[in-house]
């Protein structure tokens, strides 16, 4: 991974903002889908596709590419937008999301769109699949790295902890897990639906290296990934604290926006807000 210079960081922040605008436009066109998660993860996906991943959008099947596994498939609008912006397919194709004959399925389907590493949507399955890829890389002496993104809500799935135990047992150190800790799920706040805290202590108890980071701060996230990559003796999880609906005032931190798209009026308001924020995402955190 290259060093992240200030001018590159500025560009990434602009891309993240553009990503948010396209998420709103895409969801409006689709008429259904999830808003909060994709907006909250726009910074992390921008960091992945435009800085962290060793990949080639023109060769999605390149055997030595880094793998990015999205476990919580319902936030796929952010992945689709990042893929379009980085050149996997034309930005205009985003309009087809959730429509018939589209490659952009409502939840990602590996067989439909080159560059998606897995099929996902049913929760709790992504970490296991990422482990499988990591084991294959080790068997083949390949150096590519596997990143998996999971939601906080899916920490409630038993499969998640099956995978967490296994990764520690086999010291799967070519895997980095990123948990989107945005504190919401469909039925409400995670701590009301099913308390997860202390998530950090849980992963530590399962013998993982745990890093915590502001997931809406691109530099902090990139630094955390660098730190995670340096851990050799165990798998690493980055608990990324994000604001669901980030960048759109009336969506932020409101679980109502977990599973619904904006209507035309709401989209207009959201886009106006995002456009005026252009380039100012970082200063918000300063």
């Amino acid at each position: 991974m290259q060093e992240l210079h200030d001018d590159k960081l500025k560009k990434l922040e602009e891309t993240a903002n553009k990503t948010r605008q396209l998420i709103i436009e895409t969801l409006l066109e689709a008429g259904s889908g999830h808003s909060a998660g994709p907006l909250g993860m726009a910074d992390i996906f921008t960091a992945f596709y435009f800085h962290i991943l060793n990949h080639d959008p023109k060769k999605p099947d390149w055997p030595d590419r880094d793998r990015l596994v999205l476990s919580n498939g319902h936030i796929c609008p952010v992945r689709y937008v990042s893929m379009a912006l980085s050149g996997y397919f034309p930005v205009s194709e985003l309009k087809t999301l959730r429509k018939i004959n589209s490659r952009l399925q409502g939840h990602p389907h590996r067989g439909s769109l080159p560059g998606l590493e897995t099929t996902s949507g049913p929760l709790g399955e992504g970490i296991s699949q990422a482990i499988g890829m990591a084991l294959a890389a080790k068997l083949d002496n390949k150096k590519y790295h596997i990143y998996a993104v999971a939601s906080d809500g899916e920490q409630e799935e038993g499969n998640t902890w099956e995978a967490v135990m296994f990764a520690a047992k086999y010291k799967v150190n070519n895997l980095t897990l990123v948990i989107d800790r945005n504190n919401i799920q469909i039925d409400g706040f995670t701590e009301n639906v099913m308390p997860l805290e202390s998530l950090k202590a849980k992963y530590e108890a399962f013998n993982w290296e745990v890093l915590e980071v502001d997931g809406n701060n691109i530099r902090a996230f990139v630094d955390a990934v660098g730190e995670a990559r340096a851990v050799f003796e165990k798998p690493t999880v980055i608990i990324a604290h994000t604001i669901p609906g980030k960048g759109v005032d009336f969506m932020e931190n409101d679980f109502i926006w977990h599973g619904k798209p904006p209507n035309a009026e709401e989209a207009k308001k959201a886009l106006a807000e995002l456009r005026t924020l252009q380039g100012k995402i970082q200063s918000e955190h300063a």
Partner: protein
Amino acid sequence: MLNPYLHLNPKIFDKEAEQKPTRDGFGDALVELGEKNKNVVVLTADLSESTRTDAFAKKFPDRFFEVGVAEQNMAAIAAGLAVSGKIPFISSYATFSPGKNWETIRTTIIYNNANVKIAGHHSGIVTGPDGATHQATEDIAIVRSWPGVQIMVPCDSIEAKKATIESLKHKGPSYLRFTRDKTPVMTTEKTPFKPVQTFWTSESPKAVIFATGHMLYHALLAAKELEKAKINVLVTNVAQIKPLDEKAIIELVKKAGKVVTVEDHQVMGGLGGAISELLGRELPAPIEFIGLQDTFAESGKPVELMKKYKMDPTAIISAVKKVISRK
């Protein structure tokens, strides 16, 4: 009479005929495949000895993964390995895999068309004393509706080895069904492996018995008795339930007219379901179903269970007589 062209075990009806569990054939095949193909990997959910993956584990420790009691994780890890070029076999009891982890397999293996071989053990009430919790009797039904999956149910340990090796030709998900208990060895090394083969032939048959797995032996015993009563039947081994060799089955039904299906599984959704769906569409014919009749079984010796749940040769003979009497 036994089909003379299939090189079947000549001692098939002897009291001292060899008996082996089909899981043994699976274990032997894994070792052979491991030697031939370095991409073959094996995953087990804390059942390496009883599902016969232990020999592979010993020989190829780097390609063997013990996932512990975690069938969902086993399936999804296998999916990740498969999309990365490996050919994973996942091995557990069928009630747990593909039972407990059904949706995980559906999403990560089947919908991805991942080249994973799912070995479901302890199938059928022949699992015996463990009781109904461990007797997989719905597994074919829950697997059969998955698009693109291959389903093999070998009749004995020799065919089990062949079926396991054969499954690698299918570049996608396969389900292999095995039994715990020793069952008669009906075939030999020379017997060809085919999805549908008639083991018992006769002139002017009045019915055809389609049997799958170890139940084929009960069907052969029934045919032998029926012959004494001058009731001629065909007994056909359906070793592959999906894709079904429809052409072969239609031809046999055209010849015999009446049908009995025999399986160690619920009568719904398994072999009987597959054949009646086909015949309903192409060639409606009277059909009787031998299998579990919409109930769970219980602990007991396999032979006792077969009798109590009307899946023994006596029950098959009755079903044949009944179907022949139908218009």
